[in-house]
């Protein structure tokens, strides 16, 4: 793929205008927008909501989690403080207390209380309980690729037409029970909402946001090649626009050396000796915690198009595959006296943005590579949360592990094969990381 040329801002603006035009004027009932990581998905949702409200359409907005809804409400209220917003919430899942401070926002667990609001926002789970109301003319569905088909089935009766926005490269929705019996059906309830929507309405206009404003130039190319090989995107900034530096020089330790590499090139791999470990590999967890500690101790500074800033704890995230790993990292960080750093699993980091991320490789120390650990979206989420640099901690031997476990998922008739598969994406990322590797023996 050749890199697109031209001004990224102009290109992004042109696509946005097309999307908004289709949203307001298309004769079709839906518009689908694919957005790679950090391409301005939330900005688009906020903008579309405002334009629809300005046109007198009073849209409803569907997001997937309560925190996504709260974030959208905050952004919308900030962009347009006079827009009357309704935040519909569950009776035992109260919204972020900060929302009650916003004068333009009304909170309620009953949709009847929000009848006059220009925009009403809730999770798909909450919308599913709304009934006996006239249908909305317009809806905006955010994170539509993370929404399950059955969740869309429950809410689709509420609106006449909708704008579906999401990132196809992130984690697919999942179920803890078997759903093989429906594989290949156009309305497989365990599939993503967009897959079902497009299977039944192939004529819907589809757009793609072309520029990632989050990912630095050092990451956009890799993430685009590894995870979006047929729908490439590019970074909105050049190699010189982003810089990570440290006030204190490195002490020569492996941790500091890998941080220096990452500051310089955007990526770093801290490789521990090969070993099969329990999921909460104590040495790898300790290495992750030490990296975070050093990031803070060395007085990191970030330079970007937004200006310069100190690298503070709230701009750092640690990503893991499993919750117990996240818990182990949290307690290790607490042991080093670090507070305020986000530590979470890939599922929960979706949609978030940080300056620097430290990732515990999903396959580190494992005896096998299961479909869960190979899922393309998991690695993609972990490798695309950062604005400046991403440091991966892993046991050696992941390549061999991959080669010993090719994807063996059964091929189901009627199911579109997703490209790239996780196996290939993992190899692509590892090949890139291996050039920025520091070996470390605890």
């Amino acid at each position, binding site marked *: 793929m050749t890199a697109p040329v031209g001004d990224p801002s102009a290109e992004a603006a042109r696509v946005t205008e097309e999307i908004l035009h289709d949203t307001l004027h298309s004769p079709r009932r839906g518009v689908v927008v694919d957005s790679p990581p950090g391409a301005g998905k939330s900005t688009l949702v906020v903008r579309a909501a405002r334009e629809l409200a300005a046109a007198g359409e009073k849209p409803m907005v569907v997001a997937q989690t309560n925190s996504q809804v709260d974030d959208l409400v905050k952004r919308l209220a900030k962009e347009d403080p006079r827009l009357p917003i309704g935040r519909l919430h569950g009776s035992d899942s109260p919204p972020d207390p900060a929302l009650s401070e916003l004068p333009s926002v009304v909170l309620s667990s009953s949709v009847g209380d929000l009848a006059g609001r220009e925009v009403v926002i809730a999770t798909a789970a909450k919308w599913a309980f709304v009934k006996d109301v006239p249908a909305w003319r317009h809806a905006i569905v955010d994170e539509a690729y993370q929404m399950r088909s*059955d969740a869309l089935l429950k809410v689709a009766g509420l609106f006449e037409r909708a704008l579906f926005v999401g990132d196809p490269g992130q984690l697919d929705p999942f179920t803890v029970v078997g759903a093989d019996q429906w594989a290949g*059906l156009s309305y497989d309830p365990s599939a993503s909402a967009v897959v079902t929507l497009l299977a039944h309405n192939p004529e819907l206009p589809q757009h793609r946001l072309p520029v990632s404003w989050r990912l630095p130039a050092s990451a956009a190319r890799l993430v685009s090649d590894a995870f979006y090989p047929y729908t490439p995107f590019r970074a909105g900034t050049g190699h010189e626009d982003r810089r990570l530096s440290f006030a204190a020089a490195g002490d020569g330790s492996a941790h500091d050396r890998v941080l220096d590499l990452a500051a310089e090139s955007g990526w770093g791999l801290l490789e521990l000796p090969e070993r099969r470990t329990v999921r909460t590999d104590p040495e790898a967890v300790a290495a992750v915690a030490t990296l975070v500690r050093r990031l803070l101790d060395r007085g990191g500074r970030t330079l970007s198009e937004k200006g310069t800033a100190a690298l503070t704890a709230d701009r750092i995230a640690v990503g893991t595959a499993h919750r117990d790993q996240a818990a182990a990292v949290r*307690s290790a960080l607490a042991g080093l006296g670090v507070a305020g750093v986000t530590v979470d699993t890939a599922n929960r980091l979706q949609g978030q943005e940080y300056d620097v991320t430290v990732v515990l490789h999903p396959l580190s120390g494992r005896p096998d590579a299961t479909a869960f650990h190979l899922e393309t979206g998991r690695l993609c989420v972990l490798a695309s949360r950062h604005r400046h640099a991403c440091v991966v901690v892993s046991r050696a031997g992941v390549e061999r592990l991959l080669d010993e476990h090719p994807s063996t998922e059964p091929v189901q008739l009627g199911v579109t094969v997703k490209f790239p598969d996780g196996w290939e994406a993992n190899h692509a990322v590892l090949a890139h990381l291996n050039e920025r590797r520091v070996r470390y023996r605890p």
Partner: protein
Amino acid sequence: MSLIATLARMEALREGRARPLATVRHRHLSERPMVFVPLTTAGEAGAPLGALFGTDREEPTLLVVPQPRDRDLRFAFLAQLAQGMLPYLEGYADDVDVEVRKGKDPETGEPVEVERELCRDAPQLLVPNGSGVRYVRLLGRSMRFRRTAEEAPDEPYPVPSRVPLLGRWMTHFGERALTPGSCLLVSMTDLLSRHWASGQSGLEDQHLGALLAWLDPPPGVHGSEAALRAETARDERGLLECPPAGPATDPAFDNKLLAPAITRYDAGLSGAERAVRDLVGSQLRPTWDHVWRGLDLLRELPPGDRVAARWEGDRWSYTGHRDRLRAGEPPQPKRDDAVTAAAKLVRRETDQVRLDAHEALDDPLVMAERRLAGEAFAGEVVAVEMAYSEGRSPRPRPLVSVSTHDRPHVEPGTRVFRRLAGKAQEAQVAAAEPGLVVVRLVNQMGRGRVPAEGTVPEPGDVVCLTAFEHDPRPAAPLPPPEETPWTHGGPPGEAAMGASAPDPHTAEDYL
């Protein structure tokens, strides 16, 4: 696999015999289950070779198809199977309790009392392994759309009466088996591996003979050795000493014994049918005995407290299918429509959550698994501090400090639950530090300003709190199928709703 299950497997490997994963039995076992051991023909999808079935351990019924490619013989076999099985499957249909529930009048919408029948017990079909469950589904699919001579006299290839009915029952049982924790149709390997950990992998546990070898090895023999023998030991003719638990057969048996016997049958030699019958029976009998042996082991465990409540769900399922048959509804469609598929998925997910919670509450060993995973914690109450909610009528919100060696993944604000007089009492984590968790109780303390007697633990009490809910909340409703939205293709057409017509391009509606 959880840490505790991994540990149990390693211990099993070290000790040479299976280790318990549960202290109680988490599945319902019928007093009178029907064991069904089917065999299928290699290379011929859906062509049964024979089956051993019955409710009496000593006197199973053996049915054999001497030439599995002969469709007349196949349907004669299925007719005999229907004759043998249907009296058992239908035998629970008339013994009912009448439940009175609140409902709505379908026309006026007024609240009325609705009487519903619920069968007091239900049949239980036991097969050797997971492939057996899938085979029941396959048989159900192959039978339920067949037409009998009475229904459609003009159609070619009518099947004996009752065959489609057995197909509908098998389909129902096969579908119900996909619901977590259901017990209408269960496989012995699933039952055994739920309750014991062997020293081998989950895949290897699907071999019933090998799994039983771990559970019950001969004296002085290591489980791995006994399991290896069960899997690979062959006699002087090259046949497996422990035939596979089906439905697939041992290829050596197929080639060396079965194929020549069927050839002799095809040639019309006298005694050939008897020979095939004896051969198939010889492959089935060891598995039959294994299933009953497994049943003996399971019956030694006392049932969990909530097993009966879950069995009631199976009884409702059985009663519902009985009602659909009696109402003359068409057979289950080949494919679910969008709403039915979504409803099934959501119900199964709710049942999975409920099953996981029930098993943990019924069984300290399972709770230990959840505690190790950070999803629950147990410990001694070290302090109780009375506190009240704000507002016009303050309600008790006591703070309970629990000293624990567990490391729960909770933070201030996490909702946790404990069992109190058959209900879940909710609390909110107020503070959590290693070794000590402070929770604020928020309900189940009576109506007054002072908590009702016994609703607040006292210092010295041992409590167990879970971060998972004990009874999952009902999921949001789905639209009725006729209101399927445009995103999902709109309402299903006639073809999808009823039994579909035979494929017009195929002269005969093959399987």
